[in-house]
């Protein structure tokens, strides 16, 4: 057993990295990506002669796995915020910037207004009359903040 561990070469780490990458491709919900990356890094470190003993390889692999996972997450989070998926499933967010005509009078404070054919909770600073053109300028959870436009 120990002999087997001592005979690990950097090629084994490369194989492990590729196998993990394959596993991720088959659908492992993202967590194999960092581990695969760290296996590759361990292989690189061995090829450069930075680590020899298998115990240190293992420790390095464990440490790098955690670090690589965090790095991968940071990388993708930035990309997550940049793409268009943010607006999907967010009805209130989709309405920000929408201009519409009030179907009923509103007192200042919270009220309900019809946009399209559904009612939304709206928040306004001033009392508004029916037929007034308003704009959704922000949202707070499910409440839309509206103001009068000229």
């Amino acid at each position, binding site marked *: 057993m*120990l002999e087997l561990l001592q005979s690990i070469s950097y090629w084994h780490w490369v194989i492990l990295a590729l196998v993990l990458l394959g596993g991720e491709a088959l659908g492992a*919900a*993202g*967590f194999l990506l*960092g*581990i695969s990356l760290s296996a590759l890094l361990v292989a690189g470190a061995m090829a450069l002669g930075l680590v020899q003993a*298998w*115990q*240190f390889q*293992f*420790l390095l*692999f*464990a*440490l790098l*796995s*955690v670090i690589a*996972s*965090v790095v*991968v*997450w940071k990388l*993708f*989070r930035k990309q*997550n915020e940049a793409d268009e*998926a*943010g607006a*999907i*499933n*967010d*009805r*209130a967010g989709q309405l920000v910037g929408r201009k519409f005509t009030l179907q009923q009078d509103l007192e200042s404070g919270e009220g*309900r207004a019809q946009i399209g*054919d*559904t*009612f939304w*909770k709206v928040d306004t600073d001033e009392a508004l009359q029916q037929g007034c053109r308003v704009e959704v300028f922000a949202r707070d*959870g*499910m409440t839309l903040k509206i103001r009068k436009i000229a």
Partner: protein
Amino acid sequence: MFGFEITAGVVVVLALIFIFSGVKMVPQGYNWTAERFGRYTKTLKPGLNLIIPFVDRIGAKLNMMEQVLDVPPQEVISSDNAQVTTDAVCFYQVLDASKASYEVNDLYRAMQNLVMTNIRAVLGSMELDEMLSNRDAINSQLLNKVDEATDPWGVKVTRVEIRDISPPADLVEAMANQMKAEREKRAAILTAEGEREAAIKVAEGEKQAAILTAEGEKEAAFREAEARERLATAEARATKVVSEAIAQGNPQALNYFVAQKYTEALQNIGSAENSKVVMMPLEASSVIGSVAGISELLKQTKIGS
């Protein structure tokens, strides 16, 4: 050195567990809630997420897409005591994952019961006829109530639609009969009206014809009278002219004309083709008389000259 080797192995296993429980990939259309020691801390959005292993845990996995809620058929009694069976569909979307998972237990069942009771409340206050003809009003009333009631649960109800309102079979039959009777009544009225109108039209035509005939006769009588008047006038004038002429000339000239006309008439009778036998009170002697008159005329002219 043996302890160190085991530790190295354990550390690797621990690191793998660490990563496995820390890296979470939330699929699009879902939101997951994260709990720190059982207490809600944040909502994980779709994409790759990282939570602190051992401390954070995934709570609820919520579908943020618009969903269909089937409301099972139920019996509702209308305000005029008709029992109808009705079912509905409700479309809703979870907008706030934390509220939907922690403000309400078993969201689906809660919403189902809410919609059912609201249907009973709205339909129960209506009469059957109103119920059947005011689907739009019912839907919007339901939507308003349900939407407002589900606000605290972070749920937006976008649509509630009554799918079917079915009264009992005997009631449906009665309604069909009523409709049929109404149509028949309308048909009968229309027929009667048509007949009445036709009769009026005929009578009016006859009236018009009678008036026109009478007017024609009146006009004709007027014209005739006028003609007779004119004829009389003409005769009077002719007589006047003749008498004036006689007054100025010899009255014997008159006898000449009478005699001439008389013989002309006799000649006409004689030459008539239909019959040579003429029975008429003819005083031939008077013709002779007139001839004698002519001779007297001649005598006088001789004396005169």
